[in-house]
């Protein structure tokens, strides 16, 4: 027992730290380092060649396209939903929030299945789409819809609490001073939720680029056409040729870099927010 009685003995303390370090090492650090080690197992030349193969480049392009479509749509929706939910009172608000969170509690595979039931050949619109020569399932539109589904809540659920916390007084003041609705939104609301919005965007982007299950169900896995980067990783991993595992890790290493970048920005935003709060508390105290 320590002298103060509110601390563990040094032995207990360092045993706990050692277990935590060992666990973090095996489950966090090793998997990360292993991605890059395996990607470079055949050297830099092989690494580079794996990335510039036409099918891999096509996968990278498709993944970037997915993010470019998904993120702006979810931002627009997130801003609209947060404005309606945070600034107004209406009955059924808890139900609406639950529905917005719904995609988080649906297995990605089931999300893909829902789209197949809707747009697949035996689905509700299957015959009609086929007659008009439109393809959604096993084509890019299906992949886009699946990605939007799984990333749907990210921006909205970050924005709603931030907008609720800022209240409506500032907007009301701007309107009283003669600003119109859009001016108020651009110059008052948007700056005050800027950091929450960026937070939501990076999380949404990471998931959009990395989604596997939902996209896998609707993709059809056509190399060069409907393969995203995570699907390309799987295809290369299953390819039994010499060095194809290293090629899988090469594509995976780009996704791991994206994850590290996302973590970096996230950590910076959280550090910034903690500092701002400290400053505010300090000002109130003094």
């Amino acid at each position, binding site marked *: *027992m320590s002298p*103060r009685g*509110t*601390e563990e*003995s040094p032995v207990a303390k360092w045993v*706990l*730290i050692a*277990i*935590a370090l060992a666990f*973090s090492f095996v*489950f*966090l*650090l*090793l*998997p*990360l380092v*292993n*991605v890059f080690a*395996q990607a470079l197992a055949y050297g830099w030349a092989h690494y580079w060649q794996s990335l510039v193969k036409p099918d891999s480049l096509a996968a990278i392009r498709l993944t970037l396209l997915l993010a470019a479509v998904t993120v702006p*749509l979810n931002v*627009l*929706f997130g801003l609209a939903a947060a*404005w*309606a939910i945070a600034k107004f009172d*209406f009955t059924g608000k808890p139900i*609406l929030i639950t*529905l917005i969170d*719904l*995609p988080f*509690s649906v*297995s*990605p*595979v089931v999300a893909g*299945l*829902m789209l197949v*039931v*809707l747009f697949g050949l035996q*689905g509700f619109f299957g015959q009609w789409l086929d007659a008009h020569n439109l393809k959604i399932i096993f084509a890019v539109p299906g992949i886009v*819809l699946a990605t*939007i*589904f799984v990333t749907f809540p990210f921006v909205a659920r970050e924005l709603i609490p931030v907008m609720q916390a800022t209240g409506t007084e500032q907007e*009301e003041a701007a*309107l009283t001073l003669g600003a119109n609705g859009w001016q*108020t939104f651009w110059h008052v609301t948007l700056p005050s939720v800027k950091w929450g919005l960026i937070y939501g965007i990076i999380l949404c982007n*990471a998931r959009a*680029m990395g989604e*596997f*299950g939902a996209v*896998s*169900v609707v993709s059809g896995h056509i190399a060069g056409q409907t393969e995203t980067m*995570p699907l390309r*990783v799987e295809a290369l991993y299953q390819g039994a040729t010499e060095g194809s595992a290293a090629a899988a890790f090469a594509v*995976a290493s780009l*996704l*791991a870099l*994206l994850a590290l970048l*996302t*973590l970096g920005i*996230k*950590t910076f935003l959280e550090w910034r927010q903690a500092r701002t709060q400290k400053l505010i508390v300090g000002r109130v105290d003094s």
Partner: protein
Amino acid sequence: MARPQFRVLPGFGLTMGVTLCYLSAIVLIPFAALVVRTLELSWGDFWRLATTDRALAAYRLTFGASLVAAVANAVFGTLLAWVLVRYDFPGRRFIDAMVDFPFALPTAVAGLTLANLFAANGWLGQYLVPLGIKGAFTPLGVVIALTFVGLPFVVRTLQPVLQNLEPEVEEAAATLGAGRLRTFVAVIAPSLLPAVLTGFALAFARAIGEYGSIVFISGNLPFKTEIAPYLIVMRLEEYDYTGAIALAVVLLVFSFLLLGVINLLEHWSSRFQH
């Protein structure tokens, strides 16, 4: 929907309209499609499709491995949260930031690297496989992948609770003669319990639906290492839509039950904090 009252801020109609349209197009209509197709099945057909021997084996693995992984997350997550909040040691901030790594890393990459680490020639497998611990292509692999994926939940739920614990309570217990262990068990642990259970339930719920990380590491052998989401994909590849739908409904019902439990737990733990 809106209460009749005077509003200063404009834009309710527009933003609510956009929200409801987008929500319907992306989430509600696909959801309704699945529900309608399910209701077209007779109860007998549904039961037969949802409870084939292969499906039962897949549920056992999915729920069993998810439960084991969630327990591992509860134990190690609590330890990790405690160490990160209470102690200062080299690398603390780095590990704190890395806790979210499983959230940020695409699941396919997680599965790929974990399968490689625990394979017979992998960095960990070369030591573990001779000891009889096979992490790749076994149910243990499923547990490993799910533990990785669920790691952040307990830590992130528990950290704010630990930070807000009032030191006076522990000091009082110590003054009254309680040893450190007794203080932890009798004073600290009860106030952590709701948050640990919430994190446990979140990790469990996430694990049940998980697909990407597992397909790489489990080997997907029917009756042995095949999880329920993988069986849904198999049914779809056979164009057996109804078979896939029956399995999906079982998973969905379970997810929603867990969601209800999580909401209750969060309600309980927020009461605890005030």
